């Protein structure tokens, strides 16, 4: 493991790094977007006359000013850029303004007169499915259905001696990236547009903007990196179309940087889901039947809602072998914001429910949760959850074994406690697919060049959102080529400079950088060595690449600069697809990562407050590329999931946001998290594995909630089925059962 300092580190700790929302250009205007005051309404009229007359206003645009397709969305463009007749959530845009200052732009928004006729608000999936419900989209209120079935579910249930059924509710979570959406869109002198706005897939933004603006993709340049966090939240378009339309209308650079309130109102969130699971075991403690229904509130528009539901369905069984499975999922349109892509991608929701079932079953048959998991865990050669062949590793049992050891240790070290406090320990495991899945376009690629100045340039169409892709690229490139980090330059996040690498999502970046280098390395080194051999009058076999240039007999004999002088640069490119299963099962994943989480909580019986004192994650994701980056992803993911479990809930009432900023939507602060987070990386892969390091962007978030839920049960005997776990729920449960004044063994009553 290497503890490399990240290439972007110095600029970040000194504050010198220019984020795209820090940029300023001469003659720059400021944009503001007018969004609907109603969660569902018909637009009767829009008048922009008064706003246009306000001194300092340079442009006011509405649906009439969208030259191309008035819609966006990664899967289907069902979200209007600027609404014409209907608004479907309070983030729907109706008009936008560019002005000389933010103040004037804000004032102009107030002068735009839009008349609405409010329509019934569908603020829950249940309401949206009622026969009398208005249809939010032409095809109705069901965005997507996904299902999976294997075995004879009824026959297997009949063999079960114990069956547990529970309904789980998980909340709407805000990504809460510290840098809200924004940037500058600049019309270029020779025509064309440069869009300096963060995203997780620059080429996809270019495609979507081209469609909206009616401009060829060649005339749009997307500069999409760096970002102050994204976590999936900036994958879909946000302010880009408005900035672009305003820049075209005015011929001047337009900056839009959303305030936190504007961000809360318009941004996508994690899907709230209601998951009902009925799961049975036989006398031997073997899982036999597992029946699940998933109802997801996808909000007003599609974005990646269908794929997220598919992912949840795939991960319904997690790393367990169950002969009969029946899963039905449905994703429903409502007037509640827009749900979309978020780190974990449906896996977090379903894993909370699944691991809850495992713990309930273990308790019901009187065995411990680790034993229960051991009896049912998948092995290296077992098929994946949809019956597909997957890249074989021992990840599932490795993380279980590791977590079991940690669990035993934490239990043993339980300290004395105040009489009004209870400590509990819990664990959970999961497996999580990387990449977009079978049947989805999932291309990747990269380019390696020896440039005229002797610099080795490695470039990818990825973005740096904070996850550390720059550190990964530096580490893998220098390791694979044998050169020093001073020899290379990294180019990412600019469609005018980089090859297409696919999206910077789905834990695919690290994997794809490694796979690219596997393909680029050999031809690149061959060309370098052949040229060096010619110059030096030696045989290629005598030479190798090392720091600074070409090495022979332990010394650098020819610099990279000398190698390229007066000769053509060397450029090698590669294009390939993310590896998928040989079995053609739609959406099935091939590369999985695994985690085993142990959490220890302290519950205050007087206040109901839960404090997570310990969080230990064992991760199996292949070799660690960069120790600090890996650790940061797992620790940061873990804390984000502590927030999901105990604090975070984007509350909506009648389709309006109740939580509008970080004073009412609370994310973990330093006092809300364990002071010493712990992580163990299990790096081993089977010898025949040729997929290298897997990405760890998501896995650290997935199995934390059920581990904490399990610890809460251990502490106070409360079976958690709804997140976040609020102090009120704890107090209600403990008071009802007299936990404070009862025996120490607080969960005995629940068995």
């Amino acid at each position, binding site marked *: 493991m290497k503890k490399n*300092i*990240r290439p*972007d*580190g*110095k*600029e*970040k*700790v*000194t*504050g*010198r*790094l*220019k*984020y795209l929302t*820090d940029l*300023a250009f001469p003659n720059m205007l400021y944009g503001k977007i007018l969004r609907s005051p109603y969660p569902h309404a018909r637009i009767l009229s829009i008048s922009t006359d008064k706003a246009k007359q306000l001194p300092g206003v340079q442009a006011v645009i509405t649906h009439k000013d969208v030259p191309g397709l008035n819609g966006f969305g990664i899967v289907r463009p069902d979200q209007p850029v600027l609404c014409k007749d209907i608004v479907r959530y309070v983030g729907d845009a109706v008009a936008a303004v560019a002005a000389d200052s933010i*103040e004037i732009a804000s*004032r102009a928004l107030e002068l735009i007169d839009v008349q609405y006729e409010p329509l019934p608000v569908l603020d829950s999936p249940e309401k949206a499915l009622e026969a009398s419900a208005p249809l939010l989209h032409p095809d109705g209120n069901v965005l997507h259905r996904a299902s999976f079935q294997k075995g004879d579910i009824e026959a297997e249930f009949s063999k079960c001696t114990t069956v547990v059924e529970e309904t789980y509710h998980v909340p709407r979570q805000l*990504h*809460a*990236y*510290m*840098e*809200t959406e924004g940037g500058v869109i600049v019309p270029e002198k020779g025509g064309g547009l440069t869009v300096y706005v963060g995203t997780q897939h620059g080429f996809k933004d270019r495609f979507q903007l081209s469609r909206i603006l009616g401009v060829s993709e060649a005339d749009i340049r997307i500069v999409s990196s*760096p*970002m*102050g*966090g994204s*976590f999936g939240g900036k994958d879909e378009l946000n302010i880009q179309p408005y900035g672009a339309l305003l820049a075209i209308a005015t011929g001047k650079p337009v900056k839009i*940087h959303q*305030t*936190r*309130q504007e961000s809360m109102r318009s941004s996508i969130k994690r899907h709230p889901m209601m998951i009902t699971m009925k799961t049975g075991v036989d006398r031997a403690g073997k899982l036999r039947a597992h029946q699940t229904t998933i109802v997801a509130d996808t909000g007003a528009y599609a974005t990646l809602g269908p794929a997220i539901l598919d992912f949840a369905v795939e991960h319904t069984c997690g790393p367990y072998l169950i002969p009969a499975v029946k899963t039905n999922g449905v994703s429903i349109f409502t007037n509640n914001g827009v749900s979309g892509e978020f780190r974990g991608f449906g896996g977090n929701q379903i894993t909370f429910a699944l691991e809850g079932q495992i713990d309930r079953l273990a308790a019901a048959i009187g065995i411990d949760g680790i034993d229960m998991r051991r009896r049912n865990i998948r092995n290296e050669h077992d098929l994946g959850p949809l019956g597909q062949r997957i890249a074989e590793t021992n990840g599932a049992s490795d993380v279980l074994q590791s977590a079991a050891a940690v669990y035993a240790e934490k239990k043993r070290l339980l300290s004395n406690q105040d009489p009004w406090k209870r400590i509990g320990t819990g664990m959970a495991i999961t497996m999580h697919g990387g990449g977009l899945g079978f049947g989805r376009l999932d291309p990747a690629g990269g380019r390696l060049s020896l440039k005229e100045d002797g610099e080795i340039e490695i470039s990818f169409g990825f973005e740096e*959102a*904070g*996850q*550390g892709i720059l550190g990964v690229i530096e580490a893998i490139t220098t390791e694979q080529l044998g050169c020093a980090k001073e020899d290379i330059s990294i180019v990412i996040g600019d469609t005018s400079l980089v090859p297409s690498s696919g999206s910077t999502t789905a834990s695919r970046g690290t994997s794809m950088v490694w796979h690219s280098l596997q393909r680029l390395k050999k031809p690149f080194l061959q060309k370098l060595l052949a040229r060096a051999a010619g110059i030096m009058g030696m045989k290629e076999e005598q030479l190798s690449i090392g720091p600074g240039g070409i090495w022979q007999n332990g010394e650098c004999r020819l610099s990279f600069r000398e190698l390229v002088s007066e000769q053509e640069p060397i450029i090698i490119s590669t294009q390939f697809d993310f590896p998928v299963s040989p079995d053609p099962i739609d959406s099935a994943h091939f590369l999985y990562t695994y985690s085993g989480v142990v959490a220890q909580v302290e519950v205050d019986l007087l206040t109901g407050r839960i404090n997570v004192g310990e969080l230990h994650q064992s991760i199996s994701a292949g070799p660690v590329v960069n120790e*600090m*980056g890996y*650790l*940061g992803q797992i*620790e*940061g*993911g*873990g*804390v*984000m999931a502590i927030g999901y479990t105990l604090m975070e809930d984007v509350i909506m009432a009648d389709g309006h946001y109740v939580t509008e*900023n*970080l*004073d009412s939507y609370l*994310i*973990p*602060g*330093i*006092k809300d*998290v364990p*002071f*010493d*987070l712990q992580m163990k990386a299990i790096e081993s892969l089977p010898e025949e594995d040729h997929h290298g390091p897997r990405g760890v962007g998501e896995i650290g978030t997935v199995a934390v909630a059920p581990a904490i839920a399990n610890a809460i049960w251990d502490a106070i005997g409360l079976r958690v089925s709804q997140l976040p776990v609020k102090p009120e729920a704890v107090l209600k449960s403990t008071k009802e059962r007299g936990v404070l004044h009862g025996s120490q063994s607080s969960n005995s009553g629940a068995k």
Partner: protein
Amino acid sequence: MEVNHQTAGRNETMSVSFLLNGEHIQLNVSPVARAVDLIRGELDQTGTKISCGIGRCGACSILVNEKLMVSCLLLAYQLDGTSVTTIEGLSSQDEIHPIQKAFLEEGGFQCGYCTPGMVLATKYLLDSNAEPDQHAIQEALSGNLCRCTGYGGIIRSVRCATSNQEGVR
């Protein structure tokens, strides 16, 4: 007399003068302008970030007369007569501050957007407490939110900065 609070003061300005990272600044500001907008805008010191705008997240933290403050809740005119240090004032082109070095080497950042505030909050802590314990670190950084690191790297950075500081003495 009816006062239109919406527009009052829009066209008036006030003169302010203060030290920004040791450099004398004198300019006219709107009486309703926030300090953060002056710093990020006219003064182009974009190391000071803006995130919640309500004093909760600490991304816009600056030192005013060596005290940690959130510049989104300060009005620009309130800087008059003060000495302001932003993240840019901690390092020169050649040399970075030991706290910044600690954040760099211990991975106390990921996206980096909260980092200027975190570094300044750490400086404010260490200026008054050379050997902060767990409680002191938690207390000092509780006004600064980070969404990426889970605080693990930040805590290691503060500890590293503390021990580096001991080594210097």
